[in-house]
């Protein structure tokens, strides 16, 4: 086979700042990994049934594949000199609906895990974290739309959703440090306090700062994307802009 230029090689591979992290293999306890897999499998089954019930499966399969591919590519596009990478989950969630978007999130995580970006055994947990964003987006957007203009609602939804998904991720990390022995609620709270007390303030501070900066950047980009689409292909985003205040 003749030598070929690696697609995207020069432009797409840069630094690695993302709006949230992926769990790698071999770090989290097996019981938590198992819960992640079971929960994700349940959502996948529910989503597949729902989509099957709605009909037009061929179009949905095609949309799912293209949206997954777009998310994988978007994750590798650096935003100028800052080399920040976004994942488009909120956008896909708003435009394609949360169930289809969750399936796309799972496929993306599976693809990435095969090349070592996020673990393969924790694909369930990683999908839960990223997948939570699409459901939260569907939940919060109508609320913010009542309060703000479309651009503001998209920005606020993205920012809030990203902050909450990171909080969810932190909660999973907290769960992973607990033992499986039966404890009173108070013991769990104490355990959490001990955990937080054991982490240096600068560490928590830097993580929070990164999440805030990342979330704001991503929210801004998603808003720009939607405003661009509104100008050139309004029919694609009519659902977002048609919501009533």
């Amino acid at each position: 086979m003749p030598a070929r230029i690696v697609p995207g090689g020069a432009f797409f591979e840069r630094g690695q700042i993302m709006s949230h992290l992926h769990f790698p293999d071999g770090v989290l306890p097996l019981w938590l990994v198992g819960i992640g897999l079971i929960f994700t499998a349940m959502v996948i089954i529910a989503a597949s049934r729902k989509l099957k019930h709605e009909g037009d499966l061929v179009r949905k399969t095609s949309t799912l594949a293209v949206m997954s591919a777009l998310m994988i590519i978007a994750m590798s596009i650096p935003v100028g000199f800052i080399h920040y990478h976004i994942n488009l989950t909120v956008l896909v969630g708003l435009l394609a609906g949360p169930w289809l978007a969750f399936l796309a999130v799972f496929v993306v995580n599976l693809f990435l895990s095969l090349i070592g970006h996020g673990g393969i055994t924790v694909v369930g947990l990683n999908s839960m974290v990223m997948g939570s964003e699409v459901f939260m987006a569907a939940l919060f957007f109508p609320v913010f739309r009542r309060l703000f203009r479309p651009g503001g609602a998209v920005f606020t939804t993205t920012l809030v959703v990203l902050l909450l998904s990171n909080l969810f991720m932190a909660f999973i990390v907290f769960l992973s440090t607990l033992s499986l022995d039966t404890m009173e609620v108070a013991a769990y709270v104490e355990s959490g306090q001990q955990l937080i007390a054991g982490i240096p303030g600068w560490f928590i501070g830097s993580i929070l700062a990164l999440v805030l900066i990342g979330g704001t950047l991503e929210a801004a980009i998603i808003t720009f994307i939607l405003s661009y689409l509104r100008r050139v292909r309004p029919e694609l985003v009519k659902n977002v802009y048609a919501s009533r205040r």
Partner: protein
Amino acid sequence: MKLAFVDQQAVQGRTFLHRAEPWSKVVSTVFLIAGIIFCTRWELLIPLFLLFFTALWFLGLSPARQLYYCLYPFSFSLLYGYFLAGLPGAELTILVLRAVSAVMTLLMLMMTTPYTEVFSVLNRVLPSVLTDVMFLTYRAFFLLLGRLQELMIAIRLRGGGSTVNLFRNLASAGTYLGLAFMNAIDLNERSYWALLLRGYRGGLEGTAISSAGKLGGALLLVSISFFLAAVIL
């Protein structure tokens, strides 16, 4: 992009590992990953890591690039083990070794086995609709990547892209990703038409799975031995 690079190496490679049956490589990887997760001895993990490090170097993945790929799991496991789990030195080392060895194992699989072959194997165990989506995603990824790469070049040639003005950067990224989204929608429409016209009813045919040869058998033997050693020791 990492995915495109890795897949290209897998398709173009001509080593004995590339020639081994895909299913034996996938099953071996499953045993190795399971072994890595259960492993509590650095004496097993370090040789495995070094073996894969050398093999990947031989396969065309430079040490710098390998270290770059390991950087994220290394940092995550280190921070997690030290700050959150409060692990002592030896256990922390094992935790970090597990995370980086798992990445190397998966890279070994994907650098020697094209995605399509891995999906064909998964097709035997996963619901066909899921493997269909994976095949179609793989296809859409390359179609879209080619187009977006041209778009990115066009934007750069016209002075867009990297500047120190954050707002302009974000607006450029928004425009670019908006264009990417439109491309994806158009591609989706045409893919949908192609699927319809070719009578798609679910279930893409994957490459047939052959029985294990000597090489595949050897890989299985080694990986099962590693798994057993990791569990027993």
